[in-house]
């Protein structure tokens, strides 16, 4: 086994969470941050819920949550406790980088992901939503192959051909890696993707219409 000592701690930390959903799409701008934030806010009214932003080079969830990086303070208790936003447990690296640009090589991004998963103590949660960066690089390789038995992927796509083709590629990688459950959310659409051939092996969870706020 390739030895990164943090791995054991990561598995332990995440095992106290019933459902760890990674909101994913290789295509950018399809609504990963919007969907993961909405789902987390919504769920947190009824269940113990957490939201983790691992789009380190382009964090968005703190903006959608109307949080100023300066407000984000984490307490230390055998690690770091996520920020409590009216019941939603939230963690983002912007608390440390203060929204400054954070250029990160893939290797460094993977190390940040492992460090955070090893030191952030989510405690007993029903749901953890993870907002992810676009693309398919180091962080994604860990989500797919290191956390294969823990993470439930929720693929987000718009009806646009560019997004659907990209989603198809991602679904095939997830299938090949052995993910039993793959969720699919159509965003900025009207349900047209429901029967789409791309979705043969995934569970179509629903669609969110285009709603310019």
């Amino acid at each position, binding site marked *: 086994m390739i*030895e990164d*000592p*943090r791995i*054991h*701690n990561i598995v*332990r930390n995440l095992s106290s969470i019933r459902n760890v959903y990674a909101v994913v799409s290789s295509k950018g701008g399809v609504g990963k941050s919007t969907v993961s934030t909405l789902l987390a806010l919504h769920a947190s009214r009824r269940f113990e819920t957490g939201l983790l932003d691992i789009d380190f080079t382009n964090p968005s969830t703190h903006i959608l949550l109307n949080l100023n990086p300066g407000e984000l303070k*984490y307490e*230390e*208790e*055998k*690690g*770091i406790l996520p920020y409590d936003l009216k019941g939603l447990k939230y963690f983002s*690296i912007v608390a*440390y*980088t*203060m929204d*400054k*640009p*954070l*250029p*990160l*090589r893939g290797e*460094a*991004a993977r*190390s*940040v992901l492992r*460090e*955070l998963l*090893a*030191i952030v*103590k989510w405690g007993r949660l029903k749901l953890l939503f993870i907002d992810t960066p676009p693309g398919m690089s180091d962080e994604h390789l860990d989500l797919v192959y290191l956390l294969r038995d823990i993470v439930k992927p929720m693929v987000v796509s718009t009806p646009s051909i560019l997004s659907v083709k990209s989603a198809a590629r991602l679904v095939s990688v997830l299938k090949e890696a052995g993910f039993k459950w793959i969720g699919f959310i159509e965003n900025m659409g009207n349900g047209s993707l429901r029967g789409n051939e791309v979705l043969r092996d995934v569970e179509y969870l629903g669609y969110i219409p285009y709603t310019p706020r």
Partner: protein
Amino acid sequence: MVHEWALAESIIYHVMSQGYRKVKMLKIRLGILQGIDKEILGFSLRELASMNNIEIKDIVFEDEEPLLECSTCGYKWSLSPSALSEEEREAIHFVPEAVYALVKCPKCGSRDFTIVKGRGVSSIEVVSE
């Protein structure tokens, strides 16, 4: 208990996963960049060891000088925590890669550099009974 506890967890669970029960000496190389509190880390390691019935006789910490290397101009330098503000030091303490948002190559200003050495818990050596 502070965040060093979680660093200790990674070390102890790693040692356990390798099947060690009785450890004569646990030698840990610590990168100075992360500014880890050795006393608290040592205390946490001993607590966690006893909680997981692992016996550890000696714990030895070795400092590792940070070494950063610029890929644009080749310059190498050792970032000393004193060059950073309190806030910056804290950010790097929790997430060493925060350095990529806070530091540039002193010679050419590039952000295309790597942490070659001295990041954090960089090596764990176990000498069993």
